């Protein structure tokens, strides 16, 4: 790919044109209320916020962020398990933005402050390297969706050292789309699917969803042109009322996906139902280690004692936290009374404010989506 070609995915002229086309298509739907579509990927929201795309979205379209932030949907008991292990003296390696996510009452950062050994790594491979340099037990707190789970699976298949184990909090996105589509009162008429997850799984995984719910799904990449083009197609499909899956990220996504990566993933993990933080039970939404990998499963290797964590009463503020509704796309950060006041990136209450991909964190960092359409440039 020439540098010029790379730059063309950020070509402002094309972007402006796609923005105009998007407005055109949305208006052509002729609705009284804005049409709602949802994306389920923190990186899509990051890109939308960073490039300020919302200032260009038409008022006839509402692009909602769903439960696509892996840190935010990691459930409280899962965080508690990691914290409990740390307090039991095990060295816990974690992605940086899980560090300050509160469990029932404590986060890994709190545990570290009280003397536990918690290390931040930028990937599972680094945690394995760490395990090779010591005889200490190293547990990797494996958060993230299917794309990230592939990396975890790959290291387990590459014979990690005996003192290494995984606490899996990995999750699988397609099942949660079902939940959102079935929620009473849901107004979502189309989904933008995450391009990188689909690179692994292929776009074929969405065909059954589309058949069942008659809602179109467009797979999109993460550059501004990718997102805008994906939204244009999605709105067009909604207008045509022919729900199907479309691939707007052909350079990386095929119908079958990356078969090698899928084989690695499903060899190591199996889907299991479980709670996503704030969303309740998602059938087949969690990824757990298969029995043959039991020796590297922290849940089976250690006797995790959660009781001491429940001695601390959770903060009263937690009861007012709206992360669950925000993640399900039925509330926005501005609807939460704590947003920007008691709950800030410095003093987060809920996971959405802790995670770099959390809706509340992104809104706080980039100014939410204040209406920046009318700014008078000349004084």
């Amino acid at each position, binding site marked *: 790919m020439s540098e010029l070609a790379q730059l063309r995915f950020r070509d402002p002229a094309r972007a*402006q044109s796609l923005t105009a086309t998007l407005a055109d298509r949305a208006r052509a739907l002729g609705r009284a209320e804005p049409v709602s579509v949802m994306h389920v990927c923190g990186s899509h929201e990051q890109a939308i916020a960073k*490039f*300020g795309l919302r200032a*260009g979205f038409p008022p006839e379209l509402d692009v909602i962020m769903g439960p696509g932030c892996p840190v935010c949907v990691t459930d409280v008991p899962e965080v508690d398990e990691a914290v409990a292990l740390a307090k039991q003296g095990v060295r816990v390696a974690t992605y940086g933005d899980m560090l300050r996510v509160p469990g029932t009452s404590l986060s890994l950062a709190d545990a570290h402050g009280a003397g536990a050994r918690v290390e931040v790594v930028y990937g599972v491979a680094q945690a394995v390297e760490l395990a090779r340099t010591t005889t200490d037990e190293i547990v990797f707190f494996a958060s993230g969706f299917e794309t990230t789970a592939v990396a975890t699976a790959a290291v387990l298949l590459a014979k990690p050292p005996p003192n290494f184990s995984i606490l899996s909090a990995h999750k699988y996105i397609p099942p949660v789309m079902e939940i959102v589509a079935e929620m009473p009162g849901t107004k979502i008429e189309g989904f933008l699917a995450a391009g990188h997850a689909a690179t692994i799984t292929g776009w074929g995984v969405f065909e059954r969803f589309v058949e069942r719910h008659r809602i179109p799904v467009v797979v999109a990449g993460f550059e*501004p042109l990718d997102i805008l083009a994906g939204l244009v197609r999605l709105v067009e499909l909604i207008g045509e009322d022919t729900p199907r899956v479309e691939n707007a990220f052909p350079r990386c996504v095929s119908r079958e996906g990356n078969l090698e990566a899928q084989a690695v993933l499903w060899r190591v993990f199996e889907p299991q139902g479980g709670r996503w933080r704030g969303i309740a039970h998602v059938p087949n939404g969690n990824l757990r280690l298969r029995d043959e990998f039991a020796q590297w499963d922290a849940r089976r290797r250690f006797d995790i004692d959660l009781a001491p964590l429940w001695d601390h009463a959770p903060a009263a503020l937690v009861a007012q936290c709206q992360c669950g509704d925000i993640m399900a796309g039925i509330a926005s950060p501005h609807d939460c009374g704590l947003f920007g006041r008691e709950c800030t990136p410095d003093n987060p209450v809920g996971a959405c404010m802790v995670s*770099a991909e959390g809706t509340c964190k992104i809104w706080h960092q980039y100014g939410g989506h204040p209406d*920046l359409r009318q700014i*008078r440039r000349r*004084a």
Partner: protein
Amino acid sequence: MRNRRFVEDRITLKYGAGGGAMRALIEQVFAAGFGDVPGGIGLSAMDDGAALPIGDRFLVITTDSHVVQPIFFPGGDIGRLAICGTVNDLAMMGATEPLGLACAAIIEDGFLRTDLERIWTSMRDACTEANTTIITGDTKVMRHGELDRIAITTTGIGLASRVVPDNGLRPGDRILVTGTVGDHGLAILATRGELALETKLVSDVAPLNTMIRRALAVGGAGVVAMKDPTRGGLASALHEMADKSGVCVVLDEPAVPVRDDVRAAGELLGIDPLIVANEGKAVIGLRPEIADAVLDAIRSHPLGRKAAIVGECIADRPGSVIVETGFGRRLLAEPEGELQPRIC
């Protein structure tokens, strides 16, 4: 205006980050009880330094401690940083010909003599570039383990016929940056072992006074605000200028000069070059009628070849910084100062 941040019972890292928490600490602890400087600029202004009226000019004074880690980094070292940081703070207030620098070093027992000589040579070279010298200093040695290698505090004095504030912007004014942003902060982060990036990123640490002198000679009273965007980067500097002046700054993101490799490192690490420290750049607010002339003057200097006009001030939404991304608009959130400790 900004909310006051509360100061808790312990000082933690965020209070040294150069952001809102640090300002609250200064307001509520350090500056409390110290009066203003009549006819000049004192502690309460929380500017880059102080200015005392002396006759028909101002004596400008600034002080900085340097604790950068690692002490030797691509493009410079703690010594060069110590000299340039102080020379630049003086220049930002309009004192572009320093009278001299005082330098206090605290050194850990066991520190290698060759490292110390290397740092001192670096400081001498930086002084030569800035046409100044170290006139006095102090030395302390602490026991091994009581201090991480070395810390250097530099104080500078200079004279200025006019003190350039950081709060003089009004709607219609232009914003100029003197070169590429994000270089220093990302170069430091890339060398810190745990981030494991192989790059050729280089700090931009340099003394700006000779370049700023040209800008002031051409722009005169049309230069209405100046800051060096160190901790918290361009974003912090713009926020402070917007807030103190009561205007909104609209930043044209595609116009902001950023090196390709700095941009790439930033994308890989998820760190925006707009919010990391710079040690060889200035942000300048200019009246529109002299903006182009000042731009030319700065570009004529070796340190200013990539200078660009990157924004303008408007009256809507005072105190905010809005970014035109080329694809839309967003509000630039005020960073909580520098995210990483010991960047400078």
